[in-house]
């Protein structure tokens, strides 16, 4: 067991910048759906949601600063969930 571990201290400034980005993306997704882009609207809105959650995972939840193992686990879980969703849709989309 490690005796002393360096836990990175993330600056307040970094968090504020990320928050600003998150709010911007939120506003953007509202704006985009006010324009009628048909199916594209929801794809853009969801992509922005994905981007926002990536920022939360990486910065707020420290995945960027912690051991790689955590990020790999998150990626693995997201992969399994995505595959399950896709395979379920084989029964509906096709």
């Amino acid at each position, binding site marked *: 067991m490690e005796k002393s571990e360096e836990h990175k201290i993330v600056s307040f400034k970094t968090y504020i910048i990320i928050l600003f980005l998150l709010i911007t993306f939120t506003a953007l997704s509202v704006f985009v759906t006010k324009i009628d882009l048909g199916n594209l609207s929801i794809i853009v809105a969801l992509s922005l949601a994905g981007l926002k959650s990536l920022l939360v995972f990486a910065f707020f939840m420290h995945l960027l600063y912690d051991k790689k193992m955590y990020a790999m686990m998150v990626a693995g879980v997201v992969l399994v969930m995505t595959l*399950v969703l896709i395979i*379920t849709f084989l029964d509906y989309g096709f």
Partner: protein
Amino acid sequence: MSNSKLPNYLEHQGKFKGIFGWIFSTDHKRIGLLYMYSIMSFFVVGAILGLLMKFELIAPGKTIMEAKTYNAIFTLHGITMIFLIVVPGIPAIFGNFFLPILIGAKDVFYPKLNLLSWWLYIIGAVVAISSQFMNGASPDTGWTFYAPYSFKTQSNVLPALIGAFILGFSSILTGLNFIVTMHRMRAPGMKWLKMPVFPWTLYGTAWIQLLATPVVGITLLMVVAERVLNIGFFDPALGGDPVLYQHLFWIYSHPAVYIMILPAMGVISEVIPTFARKAIFGYKAVVISSLLIAFVGYFVWGHHMFTAGMSGTSLFAFSFLTFLVAIPSAIKIFNWMATLYKGSILLRTPMYWAVSFLFVFMIGGLSGMVLGALAINVHLHDTAFVVSHFHFIVFGGVGFAFFAGIHYWFPKIYGKMYDAGWADTGWIVFFFGFLLLYTPMFYLGIAGMPRRYYDYVPEFHFANILSSFGAFIMFGGLLIIIINLVRSARKGQKSEENPWGGKSLEWTISSPPIVENFEEIPEIK
């Protein structure tokens, strides 16, 4: 090396006295035994339910019960066996008892959470079983709770759903505990690839417990919402989709069978090398195939739904993926056989169970391949063939592995030896009864006998007689085995610390182990 003056875990007296020293204990060994005693008790109940079913099926027409009663009995039999026995089963009993010891640790990472897991198990079991005793009829949906019947029937489905939900938490917390334990508490020098196979299988299992169980949890909640709020997700009258229920249900329940079988394979992977006096053949292949089974197992659930009305693409994909997942399982069989080859075989009770495991597991697995073939499945779905398949692979797999494990580890757990004569007699009677009980069902299924029916056409009578007699014989064998284990635990002959010449860490400590397992945490070279 381990002539300890410290009290062993059975005699140790902590904060609490008597029974409270057990049901409030955070010692992983006591918790493992708590699970074993509760699980074995529920198993006897489930077995009696099965026996009642076989009584009914011994002749066409009504024999001892009405059709409605039969439906309630197979429902409870399924709920008991699946949620109370084989899903918790080996991880809860042998995982709890031996995982920390096998990796050189004093306990699991979260001992109090471990105790909570057992309490949730008991509470969930009580809630589920209360469905039998409340006002109203016993649930008759089958353990699968298919919509829309599960929310239309007036029977006591709600307590069964809630009980299953609570049991799910127990499973999730155990999985979580084991993963952190293996990541953080391996002894110095115990690298990942130095762990024995059984911990690796527990690791794969733990991830399935963690990731798959929540899906059935939310699905059961959705059925509760259907019953209580009329929410409509699975109700065609409201635009819902009953097949979507099946998808969500099996997205858990298929990986659940890997929760059942992976640890069983782990136990066999400990027993066979010990009694062949040879290291397991292809350790890395066994580890990787275990993890692969866990991973690929997430994507095959649709093979339970081949006749539900899925799209052509879906049918093809699931059949293909099902054949894929068989590959890592088969790899294991080769590894176990190769371990036996040119080994110096010691024939003892655990080995009889392990070798007969290979036989019944193969039959179960191969019959699974038959069912995985789309064109054949159309004829065999919901017939006795399916019932035979899953009893061979789940009962044969988990059950035989459990009996192998309990005889293997008996001297370590109790410091006493079981009576081998009675144990071996029990084994042979059980094995014979098992085969007689389930083999005719393959024939019956192909001939067209449906499952979950309390009646059948006269042509099927003879095969059913054979099968029901097999049940009685098997039950007899079960009694011999269990009585022998109980008597030996109380009055068996004192055992030496390593009667089998095992090579893993549990054989280096005292029998029974001291509370902290090791006097000093070992360093692995």
